[in-house]
């Protein structure tokens, strides 16, 4: 096998992986600030992409304006989700909260499909199809842009969690009752985390939409996002980034090595296997926090 080909798919894989991190970052953002695992991140990504197109195509706004408007809209939707769906579940068993985000996932996904239908639509972001040349290697331009945005977002989020609000959000995720006891408005904090995560979903939706079109497949990014988030450690922003790169490379190589052997579509299998292996061997992921048990 050609080592150049392997290297090329590893690099492109890493870039795709960084784009998976975009979805994972949304999950991490919510988990880190409220300990809620958000299984609706994929459909939020899809919903955001559809809203961008609705602003751009139906309302005739220029794309940049459509994106800005969508960010505002999604911020509101995030706040709304907390208000309607999660506030009453605070402090309930995890099984209820998981079911709730699963219900949200189904509702948002099928709801978008109901409104906009299943046909794939393009997201004309204006990134040219021509590849970048890195020496003799061909690099996908759209992936490179997505990866750069993911890294920028990573830096922003790391800085955010160092601010006073960021510290407050982390405190909420540690202990709801204790947060209430020192005057933290837990509801508002959780709402903020959902809102920010919805904004991240918008960014992911736009970038992924430009790569593979806007349709139901955007919601299926959930599996990638969850795998990356768990592999990185659910509350680690840096972990999400690194795990994305790792998963991307493994997937890229697997599609070259395994596809001929297994008859294609080995990517999904690799995802599922990575997820299972991570959970079985290292449930807290690469950099996740451990539950502190002091004797």
């Amino acid at each position, binding site marked *: 096998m050609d080592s150049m080909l392997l290297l090329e798919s590893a690099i492109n894989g890493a870039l795709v992986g960084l784009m998976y991190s975009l979805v994972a970052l949304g999950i991490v953002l919510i988990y880190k600030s409220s300990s809620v*695992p958000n299984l609706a991140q994929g459909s939020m990504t899809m919903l955001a992409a559809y809203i961008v197109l609705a602003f751009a195509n139906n309302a005739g706004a220029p794309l940049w304006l459509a994106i800005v408007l969508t960010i505002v809209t999604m911020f509101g939707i995030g706040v709304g989700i907390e208000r309607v*769906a999660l506030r*009453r*579940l605070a402090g*309930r068993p*995890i*099984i*209820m909260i*998981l*079911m*709730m985000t*699963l*219900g*949200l*996932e*189904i*509702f*948002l*996904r*099928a*709801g978008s*499909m*109901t*409104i906009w*239908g*299943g046909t794939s639509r393009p997201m004309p972001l204006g990134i040219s199809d021509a590849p970048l040349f890195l020496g003799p290697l061909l690099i996908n331009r759209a992936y490179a842009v997505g990866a750069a945005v993911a890294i920028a977002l990573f830096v922003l989020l790391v800085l955010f969690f160092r601010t006073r609000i960021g510290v407050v959000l982390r405190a909420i995720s540690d202990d709801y009752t204790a947060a209430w006891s020192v005057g933290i408005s837990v509801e508002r904090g959780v709402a903020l985390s959902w809102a920010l995560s919805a904004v991240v979903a918008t960014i992911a939706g736009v970038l992924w939409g430009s790569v593979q079109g806007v349709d139901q497949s955007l919601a299926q990014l959930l*599996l990638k996002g*969850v*795998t990356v988030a*768990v592999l990185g450690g659910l509350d680690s922003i840096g972990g999400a980034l690194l795990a994305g790169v790792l998963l991307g490379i493994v997937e890229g190589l697997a599609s070259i090595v395994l596809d001929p052997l*297994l*008859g294609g*579509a080995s990517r*999904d*299998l690799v*995802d*599922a*296997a990575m*997820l*299972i292996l991570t*959970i*079985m061997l290292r*449930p807290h992921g690469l950099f996740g926090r451990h539950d502190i048990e002091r004797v």
Partner: protein
Amino acid sequence: MLFRQAGIFHTDYAADRALFPIPADRWMIVILLVLALAAPLYMNTLYLSSYMLPWLVWTAAALGLNLILGWAGQFHLGYAAVMGIGAYSAVHAQRAGIPWEIAIVLAGLMAAAIGSVFAFAALRVKGLYLALSTLALQFVMDWTISHVPAISGGTQATLQAPDIRLLGWPVTSDAGLFYVALVWCILVTTFMLNLRRTALGRALVAVREKDYAAAVIGVNSFYFKLVAFATSSFIAGVSGAVLIGTFYHAVTPEQFSVDISIQALAMVIVGGLGSIIGSYFGAAFILLMPGLMNAFISWLAAQFGFSLGIETLAHLPHALYGALIIGFLLIEPLGLGKIYGNIRDYLLVWPFGYVKK
């Protein structure tokens, strides 16, 4: 009223711990059984074979999931895959010439064997991580079923299921198939009803409440988790096989995809965690809701004079059923079973306001 506690005095423990300590319940069960047995006489075949039959089979399946989710408290997002294992095992066994009665038992055993893999995940992790790993296992099994030609009969293939024969007699009439489903559903229900009176049932509940604490009082939590997963997988496997044998008559991987797992989960949540009668309600609700909703929405649309696209009609029920899950979690987290229980409790002591607990 229907349920009265007044005048009922149990004079020994056996009577107090009977399956249905209140005569009204016993009467209701008898009436329902008679109604069910006589269903082919008064119901037209369309209702019988396209509503009653899948409802019964899905109720059995939902009860199996309830065993894991409601009683043992373990998350299971790969239930449909286990049903699929049973379905494929039964069809292959049948095609190899094994009689159907034995084939479905084999299907159950196969499903129990593979389904127990989930128990090993449950041994290692809990809560969120268990949910995710069972979800991943669902994907792996989906992938295996659809990508191994020896199982699926080639990619994108549909495998025809041979007709059912019981003790050499072919069962092909709608009524016959209905009775097969009915018997299976009654079997599972009886098992579940009795389970909560056994040591196994109590141990499962102990593990659900706090597996650590259960271990401290001498409940081997791993053993019971394994038993719970194996039993529930057996029920899932047989239900999958019965579903194929009596309803679909052919098996494809899509019949047991992750969406179906979520649908089964929705049945249990809507019906009520740990509630047996709730599983009946939940299965009925989730199965019937899309059709009813579509009919209702088409009617509404017709009334107001605008037409809805086919695509809208295809996706709207899904959106509604997502909304239903959300709604139930918010309003009555213990589902329809709990609502039924509340009504029953109210009637038990009517006209007084308080329930003796």
